């Protein structure tokens, strides 16, 4: 039988029993958010696949809609969302440099950008409704387009809406100084917001341009 030379050896003790260091927590949170975004990729792919099928099978319907609508409004909207993504990353940068006031300004601009985008989307939906493109089934020639267009864009719009709410929450907490030492909360929101931006980059090209 083996002799126990060190049978009561304690493992390397952590400084703080049972609690994770801030860095470990940040690592966990980041991996968690990335995994969440991974699952979002799959949901968005299901939302968009119906549209892609339509684009391939019935190109005329899509081309007709493109002509009616033009790309002016949606391009402006795209710029707004891209800019908001830039504001977001600048906000995180400001907080990492210890500039709380700067962070609040940049994140405020992000929330504003998201709101403007949603207003733009509302205007666009109104125009489309005016053209007779609606979500549900109708007798019109647009019937096959409506649901396949609204499902992915509205799902994205809902994500922007959630993002704006989240931005306001980040502002509230940021104003209390909760991110002064550890801006992970801003970084998590940033990951979400940039992801929503990336989705829009793909949707914009797939739906409005191709």
């Amino acid at each position, binding site marked *: 039988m083996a002799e126990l030379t060190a049978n009561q050896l304690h493992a390397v003790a952590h400084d703080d029993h049972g609690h994770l260091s801030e860095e470990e927590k940040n690592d966990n949170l980041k991996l968690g958010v990335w995994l969440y975004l991974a699952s979002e990729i799959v949901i968005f792919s299901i939302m968009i696949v119906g549209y892609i099928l339509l684009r391939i099978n019935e190109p005329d319907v899509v081309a007709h809609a493109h002509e009616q609508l033009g790309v002016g409004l949606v391009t402006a909207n795209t710029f707004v969302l*891209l800019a908001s993504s830039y504001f977001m990353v*600048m906000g995180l*940068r400001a907080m990492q440099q210890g500039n709380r006031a700067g962070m609040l300004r940049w994140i405020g601009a992000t929330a504003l950008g998201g709101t403007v985008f949603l207003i733009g989307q509302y205007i666009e939906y109104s125009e489309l409704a005016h053209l007779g493109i609606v979500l549900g089934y109708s007798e019109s020639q647009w019937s096959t387009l409506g649901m396949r267009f609204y499902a992915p864009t509205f799902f994205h719009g809902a994500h922007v809406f959630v993002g704006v709410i989240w931005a306001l929450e980040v502002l509230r907490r940021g104003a209390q100084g909760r991110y002064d030492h550890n801006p992970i909360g801003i970084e998590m929101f940033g990951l979400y917001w940039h992801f929503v931006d990336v989705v829009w980059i793909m949707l914009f090209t797939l739906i409005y341009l191709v």
Partner: protein
Amino acid sequence: MAEATRDEGHHSHSNTVRLLGREITVEGGVYTVVFVGLAILTVIEVLSAEYLKGAIHDAPSAAATLQAIKAVLLLGIAIIKAGLVIWFYMHLRDEKPLLAVVLLLPLLIATLSIMYLLAIPPGGYAL
């Protein structure tokens, strides 16, 4: 495309960016450069889409080829834009490779399923 100089501590905090062999100093550093890049790419995208749409309209005989070129070109630009946001704004360049796997795995699986779904003939199978 853009690479921040790393002599000032955290590279995302530097205002100086080395781009195509030149040093550019701008407020916001690499983030600003990436944003300008995104904006330029978007303009190129919209303009080429509009141009190609006209070309397809004018030359119906070459429509299929032009349409294919248009799709590949625009999707290529979109993927570059998405990549820029992920690489710089979402800080993938600073992260562990594990996060890249987390990103690529669902893309692979989603692409697999979409490719298959695209193979469904128009109007279903009952032809």
